[in-house]
């Protein structure tokens, strides 16, 4: 319409101009861990049903949980839970209108990631060496 000159309008959002922020990772990780925990809870319910079904029915389930794949799986579920929990608290704080300044949100984002790494290691150390 304006002939050869392009209109000087703000073109927001600047989809092509951005840099990476941890808060992008925390956002998508909350969703990924939420979906993982969905599967984890279903497994947990099957575990309860296997216990109720008696020792013979429980046998293969218990053996799987005690084996390498089961142990790694449990470790990952605890890590997913620790992350979702820490970041869930962030979400709840955000909902009150606090912690939303970019610098604050980035600090707490790193804290949530640190917690997700440290909590399962701490729990395993406690179970293995704690008596």
């Amino acid at each position, binding site marked *: 319409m304006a002939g050869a000159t392009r209109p000087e309008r703000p073109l927001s959002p600047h989809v092509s101009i951005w840099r990476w922020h941890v808060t992008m990772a925390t956002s998508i990780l909350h969703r990924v861990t*939420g979906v993982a*925990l969905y599967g984890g809870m279903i497994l947990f319910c099957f*575990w309860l049903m296997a216990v*109720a079904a008696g020792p013979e029915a429980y046998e293969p389930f218990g053996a799987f949980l005690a084996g390498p794949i089961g142990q790694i799986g449990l470790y990952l579920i605890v890590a997913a839970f620790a992350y979702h929990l820490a970041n*869930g608290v962030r979400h709840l704080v955000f909902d009150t209108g606090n912690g939303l300044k970019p610098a604050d949100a980035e600090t707490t984002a790193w804290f949530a990631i640190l917690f997700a790494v440290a909590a399962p290691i701490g729990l395993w150390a406690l179970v293995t060496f704690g008596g």
Partner: protein
Amino acid sequence: MSKGKSTPLGRVRNHGAAAEGTGHFVGQRVSAIALLILATWFVLSAALTMDGPTYLAAIDFLVSPVNAVGVILLVMVALYHMRIGMGEVINDYIARPFTKVVLLLLNALVPLVIAAGALFAVLLVNFGA
């Protein structure tokens, strides 16, 4: 707001997917706070009191009344929370109406069936023959 003059489409526009947002939002937060306590309790007490994932350790854990009630609450609240959450994920990513409806239906039914089975299991362990 002249609500009476708007068409059904006009009323739905700008009100989110199905005007259920606030209820889900509040339910998601309330269940999140409950899970903060319940799920943390379960992970810690199961890890610290159960001697490996054996049958006897599981029975020992579940026959304690406090543990049984805690596990029942955990199952109910977690399945409620994850059902709302997964509903949102499905609404965000699945565009084809048929696939979306099928997945939303599964998301409504599967946790319900699983929860019924899990609760019955805890009762059976405690009161079964």
